[in-house]
């Protein structure tokens, strides 16, 4: 007969499992951690109830400014009552469904494009059609839609226009500049170096000022270039220079062996770059380039200083109305949420790309 050993596992002490265990290992594992936990809990206890009271319990959502002042809590009415101006700005009131629809199309395309298995021809065509439809919705002039001048494009659609087109145009331009800077041809190399160093040597604000204040003085009589286009070009030029330096870092990280291997296979320069070098280099530089794209997205709000009514400016304009003056915190929280959503989805997508492209090397 075999001896049966009593092996019924003893339960671990209650202080090691469950809630208590979690608290002990995570919050009170050492004297210093316990101290930090207590301090943090104290501050949360001090801040959170007041914050909730301000933001939700005492808050007003659809009142007038005067009623808000009487209520005392957060005045979300400043956002809800002025929402259409904050989002759409000067776009004619009865036609504001057009930019709304354009934005929905843009978001749909962006969300679908997140999935790399969809990166086929049909997606390219969808983008072309989508861009055409968005342009048509904004500009009008065809199919019975009354034309709307670009000077009336403002608010969130303008912010998205400047950032989406700015980023998609700046990235390829930046890659070209990076390749140009590595080129063996002196003319191309020096041109790229001069361009990159000049642009990186000045702040974006000065570029925007140049494009909006000085540039028109040098144009011939009667020719004016759209203010939005000028700002757009300035943003593209600026972002491209930064992208170029990041991509150059990626190119330098690829070992010489890769270049030589590509050459020994008989690949010419475009093939070598397209098939061997760039796929590896761009993969390496995903984190820094997304960093640049995120900051470029936020930098579009600088167009405020050249009088374009982007999301930030329409909000500020609302706040200078005496009826709503003084509720800047609520309004800025609202647009901060919009910017956060944009930036956070970019960075989470970049993490996902990194995971998908990880090859273990």
């Amino acid at each position, binding site marked *: 007969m075999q001896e049966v050993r009593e092996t019924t596992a003893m339960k671990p002490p209650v202080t090691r499992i469950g809630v208590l265990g979690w608290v002990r290992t995570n919050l009170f594992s050492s004297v210093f951690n316990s101290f930090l936990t207590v301090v943090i809990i104290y501050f949360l206890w001090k801040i959170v109830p007041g914050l909730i009271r301000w933001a939700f319990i005492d808050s007003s959502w659809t009142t007038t400014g005067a009623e808000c002042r009487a209520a005392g809590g957060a005045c979300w009415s400043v956002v809800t009552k002025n929402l*259409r*101006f904050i989002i759409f700005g000067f776009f004619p009131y009865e036609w504001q469904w057009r930019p709304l629809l354009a934005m929905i199309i843009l978001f749909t395309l962006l969300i679908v494009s997140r999935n790399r298995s969809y990166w086929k021809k049909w997606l390219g065509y969808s983008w072309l059609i989508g861009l055409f439809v968005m342009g048509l919705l904004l500009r009008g002039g065809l199919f019975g839609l009354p034309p709307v*001048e670009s*000077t009336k494009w403002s608010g969130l659609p303008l912010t998205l226009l400047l950032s989406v087109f700015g980023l998609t145009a700046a990235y390829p331009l930046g890659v070209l500049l990076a390749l140009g800077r590595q080129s063996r041809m002196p003319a191309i190399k020096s041109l790229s170096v001069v361009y990159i160093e000049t642009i990186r040597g000045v702040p974006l604000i000065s570029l925007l000022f140049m494009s909006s204040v000085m540039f*028109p003085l*040098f144009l011939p009589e009667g020719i004016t270039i759209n203010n939005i286009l000028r700002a757009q070009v300035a943003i593209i030029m600026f972002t491209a220079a930064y992208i170029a330096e990041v991509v150059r870092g990626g190119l330098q990280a690829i070992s010489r062996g890769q270049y030589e291997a590509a050459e020994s296979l008989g690949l010419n320069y475009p093939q070598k770059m397209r098939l061997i070098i760039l796929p590896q280099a761009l993969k390496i530089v995903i984190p820094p380039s997304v960093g640049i794209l995120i900051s470029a997205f936020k930098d579009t709000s600088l167009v405020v*200083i050249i009088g374009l009514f982007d999301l930030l400016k329409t909000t500020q304009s609302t706040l*200078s109305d005496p009826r709503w003056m*003084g509720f*800047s915190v609520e309004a800025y929280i609202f647009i901060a949420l919009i910017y956060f959503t944009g930036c956070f989805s970019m960075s989470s997508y970049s993490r996902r790309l990194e995971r998908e492209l990880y090859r273990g090397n």
Partner: protein
Amino acid sequence: MRFLKVCAVVVAVALIATTSLAIAGETLDTVKKRGYLIAGVNGGVFGFSMPDEKGVWKGLDVDTARAIAAAVLGDANKIKYVPLTAVQRLPALQAKEIDVLCRNTTQTLTRETANGLNFAHVNYYDGQGFLVSKKLGVKSAKELAGATICVLPGTTTELNVADYFRANNMRWRPVVIEQTAELSKAFFAGRCDVLTSDLSQLAAHRATAPNPTEYVLLPEIISKEPLAPVVRHGDDQWYDIVNWTVMALLQAEELGVNSNNVDMALKSQNPRVQRFLGVIPGLGKDLGLDDKWAYNIVKQVGNYSQIYEANVGVNTALGIPRGLNDQWYKGGLMYAAPFR
């Protein structure tokens, strides 16, 4: 060195070429051919030029621009508004991106000479003042020695305060805040004793106070800010049109003509009214406009009193009494030259 000289010459020639002299009548023809007026405005000054919740431009400066469009094109709505920042406004006018600048711009000597601009008749007399809490018990700005003062940076406002306190041999401590909205918050939260800005702005600030009656304006006005529409040098006819449009607004008030009674006024037997409204033709033709120009202004926009009361007057959120902006016969500075 030679290269540098050549460069300098090229740049100079380019500058001269771009600032080529305008030919008289050019702007009027351009506006008529284009079919709408391009007016530079401010983007965010309540009561002067600001979009409302529906994105429609409202304000005293906006109505001045509308009056110009009514006079020139017969339709006050044929305008494209270009919101401009303080830095952009003068270059935009010089580069002919706009036909007229109606953007609370103060008339100064250097702006008329060095910047090559002409200021039409003033459409609002502003000035810098001080707002204090009644609790402070101050009756005059002369008693403000050692006070902390909330002020916007980088404007003439800040320099004016410095000048005033130095001239009166008093010390002050500035609390500099970049955003207009934050400025009033800081003042009402008690971070400074005094808030200084243009009177029209102080009125807007006071309107947002938790308790507006607890604050008073001190009697001292420390600067003169005559705000007027601006045009380029070199096109006298266009200058006349803008200048006389503002005066037409004033003249209509003086004659007692407003947007409600202007059709009745057409039948008036008063020769001054008849000349003004073009019943006796001639004045419009001399300006290069339709003889109905003043009628169109009054019918579509109103007279000066109407636009003042609708945008900044005592029944608006700003609640500014006419004061200096009243007619000359009521003790103000608004004085239209004779229409004849």
